């Protein structure tokens, strides 16, 4: 992820680029090396286990199951919409937090990042209390427009957006704080309105940070489980995303759960690698 963050390269990394051999020659202290290797094993072994225990022979049949395809498409579709919603709402919020000062700004910043630490199930319940049929806002949606979010695909998107947007907001806010705001002042003296300066200068400068936030939000939405199942339920074809499908197959057909897990892993890695490659090319 560090390559995706806008100022991701730590100050010292320039030196590393100049003399890659020097770092390799340096003695690594044992108290750092041992835990580091343990961490690698801890993070990589589960992924390896997925590969090792996968039922490769049943794989084609399991993958071609229509329900699998439904769940996968639903996941990709809703995660992408959730990432887009996070972008449209989150970038302006990040700008507000980074560039303006208003009373209670710190509080707002703390509150909008709460979903980061909130257990997603709790998030799902909270969403029901607001947008459910009898919820604070949901009641009126139902009454005036006959429209109800829970247990619909739109509800999945809402749940995923709730959980994913704070990632984007934090990434973009960090990028904005790192960008010299005097660039906007220069643009103004050249005749640009604040909105034009934001689009053509600020946004262009923080684009890598926005992309990093977008990828984070998308990945988080793709893996979303707790808020989704609580708020949107588990209706195959409508609200049953991949993580839900995986979890529920685990008892009935462990092999299928494994295959779905691998599929989800492969898809998200492919998308991340693709974006990363594109971003790296854009930087050169």
């Amino acid at each position, binding site marked *: 992820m560090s390559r995706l963050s806008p100022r991701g390269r730590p100050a010292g990394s320039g030196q590393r680029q100049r003399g890659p051999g020097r770092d390799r020659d340096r003695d690594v202290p044992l108290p750092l090396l041992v835990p580091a290797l343990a961490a690698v094993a801890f993070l990589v072994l589960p992924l390896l286990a997925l590969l090792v225990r996968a039922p490769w022979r049943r794989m084609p049949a399991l993958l071609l199951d229509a329900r699998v395809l439904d769940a996968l498409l639903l996941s990709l579709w809703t995660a992408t919409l959730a990432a887009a919603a996070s972008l449209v709402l989150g970038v302006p919020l990040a700008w507000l937090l980074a560039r303006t000062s208003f009373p209670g700004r710190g509080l707002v910043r703390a509150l909008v990042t709460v979903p980061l630490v909130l257990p997603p199930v709790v998030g799902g319940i909270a969403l029901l209390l607001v947008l459910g049929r009898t919820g604070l806002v949901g009641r009126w949606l139902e009454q005036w427009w006959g429209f109800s979010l829970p247990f619909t695909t739109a509800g999945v998107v809402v749940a995923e957006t709730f959980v994913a947007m704070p990632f984007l907001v934090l990434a973009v806010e960090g990028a904005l704080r790192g960008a*010299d705001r005097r660039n906007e*002042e220069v643009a103004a003296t050249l005749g640009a309105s604040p909105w034009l300066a934001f689009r053509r200068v600020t946004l262009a400068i923080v684009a890598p940070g926005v992309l990093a936030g977008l990828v984070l939000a998308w990945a988080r939405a793709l893996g979303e489980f707790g808020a989704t199942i609580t708020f949107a339920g588990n209706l195959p074809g409508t609200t049953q995303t991949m993580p839900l499908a995986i979890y529920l197959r685990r008892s009935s057909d462990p092999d299928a759960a494994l295959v779905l897990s691998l599929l989800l892993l492969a898809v998200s890695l492919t998308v991340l690698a693709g974006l990363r490659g594109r971003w790296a090319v854009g930087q050169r």
Partner: protein
Amino acid sequence: MSLSAVLDVRRPGFRLDAALEIAAGEVLALLGPNGAGKTTTVRALAGLDRLTAGHVTADGMVLEHVGHGVRLPPQRRPLGVVFQDDLLFPHLNALDNVAFGPWVQGAERRLARARAGAWLERLGLGGRTHARPRDLSGGEARRVSLARALVLDAPVLLLDEPLAALDAATVLAVRAELGRHLGAHAGATLLVTHDPADMLVLADRLVVLEGGRVVQQGNPAEVARAPRTQFVARLVGLNLHRGRADGSAVHLGGGVTLTVATAMAGDVLVAFAPAAVSLHHALPAGSSRDSWPARVVGLEPYGDTVRVSLDAPPAVRADVTLAAAHELQLRPDAPVEVAVDAAQVRAYPP
């Protein structure tokens, strides 16, 4: 277009309180030590810093008037601004940095680029149009930032240290180009600088700012002849002291009396060049009437002479030839006798 401003900008621990008038076609140099409020002046005129009180008017058009509640945003002011730190857009190449202004103001992209290219060519950057800001040298970046402000043909120019931090060869070329441009510029120009050469070559008039206030103004020759503060005196290379005149005798601090050509009375300023100061072997039996004993504080080569700093009071700087420095065995802490040529001392009311 002329510019007229009464600027009152208050911040915790600082207040800018200055009035500026720049006629059409005039280049006003704004000088002052660090923290004097020069950049704040530029930002206030550009509309980037809000006035606490006062107004800014360009050719009778009110850009900001606190009393009347008028305030045009920066993008609607007829100004071209060069910022101290270049501040090139990091995501655009040199050409698009310069083309940004014309494009924003409605020029077709192709036309905007053509105008930008012509300016870069003029400033000797014809071969660097596609370079990113991070690949430009300091001198190149400064010229791109100049081109970006000048390409708009804004009727009022605000240039914040446009020639600072350039290498010697580049300074000459850019100063000459800037001089040509400002000579033909029909509007008002504010040039923030700390370089005496800039003010002599480029400026029609000077305003000296210290601690947020105007301490001196006038044409460069006047200011250079009769500095009013130590900052200005150092800038133009003169010794400056306060004293009390009694006819042709001026009493400085430390019991030192200078003889001046014109008789005056009361508080005066006296200015004299380091070349008007002569140093002699310390007198064994006390000083004569027109000289005083001092100790050398510092020595520094200055062309084919040596500039000698002497301790207070009154602290003066003297220029002596290398031969004299050698003959007097000048070194830090050496005792000398100091005399000043009365014919070269100017006294004027403070």
